[in-house]
């Protein structure tokens, strides 16, 4: 559909844009189908809205794969994926009832919960944290204890807590560090404004490896950088999880939808585990700007955060949960405030839904542990195309 060969003058391009726009409209036609992919007929297809944190990218590959592969349809769900944007806070959208489920980082969502949003973590998709602090190899920054006196970038908006947790753990006063508000990119590091920049394994770290090193004229290599992984430093906090509306969970119908939604989503993630390239292609087709190799890298790195999943994909590990909650209460940011003022209550997460979803997936023969999972090798290209 998108492969119109468009050539010629500007005027022709404008005229063609009508045609392409018109073609784009027939995508919604599949929603009305009532026969599930598995051959069973749905008594009723439930519309479900899922709110993401950001624009379409492989970070959310499992959900897009579940749509693409018809897993939601097979569970009698008609899922609409709502992308994030600059001013969209997924857990707020969920709490306001504008979405049925939302993807959010655990500390940020818990802060919203403490502020009164009745939202519950029903599946911990990412079991590990993907946050890094990246510096040039010659900077001498190899652990958080080297941060003192250096320009350390952080993104703010609740994305900075691991940075401060690592400083606190290393016994460094955050005030002795020159904390720099960093853009959501690596320009600050590459331009020398920031000595160590916050980066996600699956996105910003790839961006530096997709940039040309002006000294060699070639791409930067991992040897050019020191990488501190907050997961390895022991201050990793839980990130992408599926959150549900706590009040509605007492409604058996919503709970049933939640089980089927989580099952199909996790099935999507297991598809992406085994089909990295196909999943990268699915998201790349929907959001062509970032480039296919970048999306493939991202998909591969995301898989490393999910698999292998000892307790089954999406299962909320109490130890990791408690560590996140503990760090959220202990770590002070520059203003002296912590993410949480008290421990989250018992109802902040539940494994009921994901356990029921696992039962559904076992019936379908889906491998929910990925014990034999091994990441692939992705070779990045300039600009990630």
């Amino acid at each position, binding site marked *: 559909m998108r492969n119109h060969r468009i050539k010629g003058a500007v005027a022709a*391009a404008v005229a063609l844009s009508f045609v392409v726009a018109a073609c784009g409209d027939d995508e919604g036609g599949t929603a009305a189908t009532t026969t599930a992919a598995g051959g069973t007929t749905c008594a009723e297809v439930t519309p479900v*809205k899922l709110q993401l944190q950001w624009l379409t990218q492989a970070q959310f590959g499992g959900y897009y794969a579940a749509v693409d592969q018809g897993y939601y349809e097979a569970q009698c769900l008609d899922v609409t994926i709502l992308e994030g*944007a600059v001013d969209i806070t997924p857990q707020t959208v969920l709490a306001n009832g504008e979405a049925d489920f939302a993807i959010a980082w655990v500390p940020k969502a818990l802060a919203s919960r403490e502020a009164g949003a009745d939202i519950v973590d029903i599946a911990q998709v990412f079991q590990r944290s993907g946050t890094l602090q990246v510096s040039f190899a010659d900077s001498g920054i190899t652990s958080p204890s080297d941060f003192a006196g250096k320009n350390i970038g952080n993104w703010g908006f609740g994305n900075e807590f691991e940075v401060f947790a690592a400083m606190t753990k290393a016994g460094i006063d955050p005030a002795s560090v020159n904390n720099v508000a960093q853009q959501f990119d690596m*320009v600050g590091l590459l*331009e020398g404004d920031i000595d160590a920049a916050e980066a996600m394994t699956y996105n910003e770290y790839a961006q530096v490896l*997709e940039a040309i090193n002006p000294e060699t004229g070639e791409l930067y290599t991992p040897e050019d950088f020191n990488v501190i992984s907050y997961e390895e430093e022991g201050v990793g906090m839980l990130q992408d999880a599926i959150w549900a509306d706590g009040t509605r969970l007492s409604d058996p119908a919503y709970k049933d939808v939640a089980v089927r939604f989580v099952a199909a989503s996790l099935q999507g993630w297991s598809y992406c585990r085994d089909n990295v390239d196909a999943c990268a292609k699915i998201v790349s087709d929907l959001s*062509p*700007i970032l*480039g296919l190799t970048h999306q493939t890298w991202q998909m591969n790195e995301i898989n490393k955060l999910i698999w292998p999943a000892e307790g089954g994909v999406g299962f909320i590990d109490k130890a990791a949960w408690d560590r996140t909650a503990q760090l959220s209460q202990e770590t002070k940011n520059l203003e002296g405030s912590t993410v949480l003022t008290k421990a989250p209550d018992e109802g902040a997460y539940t494994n009921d839904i994901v356990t029921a979803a696992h039962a559904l997936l076992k019936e379908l023969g889906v491998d929910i542990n990925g014990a034999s999972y091994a990441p692939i090798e992705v070779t990045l290209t300039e600009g990630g*195309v």
Partner: protein
Amino acid sequence: MFVLSMALVATLWEAYKWLGPKNGGEIFGWKVLPRSKDSLMPHVSDVLSRLTDPINPQTDELVLTGVLKAVWYSFQLVLVGFGLGLAAGLLLAVLMTRFRLAERAILPYLVVSQTVPLIALAPLLSTWSGKVEIAGWEWPQWLTAAMLGAFLTFFPIAVGTLRGLKSPPPAALELMDSFAAPWRSTLFKLRFPAAVPFIVPALKLGAAGSVIGVVVSEISIGLRGGIGRLVIENMRKSNDPPIVYTAVLGAALLGLAMAALVALADALFMRNRPKEAVA
């Protein structure tokens, strides 16, 4: 003339790139001069040549096509927003001219309304989609962006038109009164014609407002299809600066299209007016 000024901007850009400090400069210790290196300030030629590249190697679709599609999408929203804002502005102005009480009651609120930040309103209004239903017709998400365009449009139009409608000299109004002309006749035969020189500049402000309102709310709520959305899409590619600027060019194109439209209206409405009549 316009092409010439475009060329001038491009020349200034390149001149700064050539003369400006590669790593930015300081004036009295303040870092004010932007860096001029290619990774932050791409050459104009790079941005233009990027337009004719495909979006990615897997597709034939050109960057230019994507930009134009987004501009067209946003342009429609801008038109809707501008239209709504124009109607609301004119209506308010007439109301305020007719009833002094209305002017005293409404005008302060109009001023206050413009101090509400757009980025605070956009997410709020976007929650209406899927929730607000008017007689079986559901509030679409794009209408949020158009409404915010209208929100920035109606104010200059209301204020400009109000001033214009009150501009006829007392003698002219008294003449109409002496004919026992109904208020409606005075409005259409005297007040509106007299208001045209005030409405035209208000239209220009309103047009700029509707573009800003639509583009900013597209960025804010991430409305798929628009040029604002394309700006944040392309911003994700920080390692490819020219592509970021292609979207910015698109946004500029959108502004120019609206400016052209208003210039056309200007020429149309002002065609029979002697130059000195313009206050």
